[in-house]
């Protein structure tokens, strides 16, 4: 029996600008997973995100979600973000059988012009929840935008089918 506790851990960022605009990117046609689909920036956690850094306490590196997310966003779209907040989670099993956990976060846009990482994505847009309906988004992302719109009005709830 393989170790049933081991998972890939991915983190995704819904970057918010001007209160209600979200950054979406289109995955390159040559990507193995979800080619041509619209998504949000993110990627897999790696131990290199923290192993080389000094620990913040005797045993722990703190703020790993925030740290990984900032790196991913910088690499993929060239933006600086702040106020990273947890939104929701998703366990997935890819067609190759690999189990992973996706942590979806929200972050505020700070500065920079979008610069797409070659080979990863080939287009981007800043869209409102309403506008996002006309894009071929990965399933579940629209519902997350709805969640954030509500959060901004002070209503916090779990992910649910819109």
């Amino acid at each position: 029996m393989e170790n049933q506790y081991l998972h890939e851990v991915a983190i995704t960022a819904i970057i918010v600008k001007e209160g209600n605009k979200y950054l979406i990117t289109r995955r390159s046609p040559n990507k193995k997973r979800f080619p041509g689909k619209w998504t949000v920036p993110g990627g897999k956690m790696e131990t290199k995100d923290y192993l080389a850094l000094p620990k913040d306490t005797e045993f722990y590196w703190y703020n790993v979600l925030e740290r990984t997310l900032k790196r991913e966003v910088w690499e993929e779209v060239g933006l600086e973000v702040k106020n990273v907040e947890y939104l929701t989670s998703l366990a997935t099993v890819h067609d190759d059988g690999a189990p992973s956990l996706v942590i979806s976060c929200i972050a505020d846009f700070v500065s920079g012009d979008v610069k797409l990482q070659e080979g990863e994505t080939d287009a981007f847009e800043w869209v409102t929840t309403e506008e996002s309906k006309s894009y071929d988004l990965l399933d579940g992302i629209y519902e997350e935008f709805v969640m954030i719109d509500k959060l901004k009005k002070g209503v916090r709830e779990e992910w649910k089918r819109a």
Partner: protein
Amino acid sequence: MDDNSRYFEDNQIMPAEKISLENAKENKLFYFVANVVPYRESDGRCLILKRDEREKVHPGRYGVPGGKLEWSQLDINHPTRMNGDVLDFENAVEDLLAREAKEEAGIDIEGPFHYINSVAFVRPDGIPVILVKFAAKYVGGDIVLEPGGFVDHAWVNGEEVDNYECIDGVREEVVRTIKIFS
């Protein structure tokens, strides 16, 4: 299931038939652990649990409910959603926390879950762990401690927590939880 197979064939979708680490990248595998600080609205106190003195890690110290994500608990034939040929199980962490709070302490908690912080560490056996901490409202249930798990409990506010020997970080998380909900 036959209907599914036909649908998959027509759409050239080939979801995994079993979960396996064979194709996962070894340097990108982690234990994912989530903990939750249960908050009782009626008196503004949080639940902390005392670990057994015989535990190897943090013996006798106070912590909060939580546990490791386990892919063997994902029912591959019943994903909550299909995303292309990827099987999705929504609210994975939220479900894990509700289950652990029930199993370890006998209580019901309710979302939404508020993020407190996240840490990484490496276990003595070398496996990297991502630990994410949340706060959630206690909504009912009498405390029933899981045999072999915890041996005592306390409901504490931001000052009372100082009277208990807690695992590093727990005191701050209790204080933070009270701030989130008040």
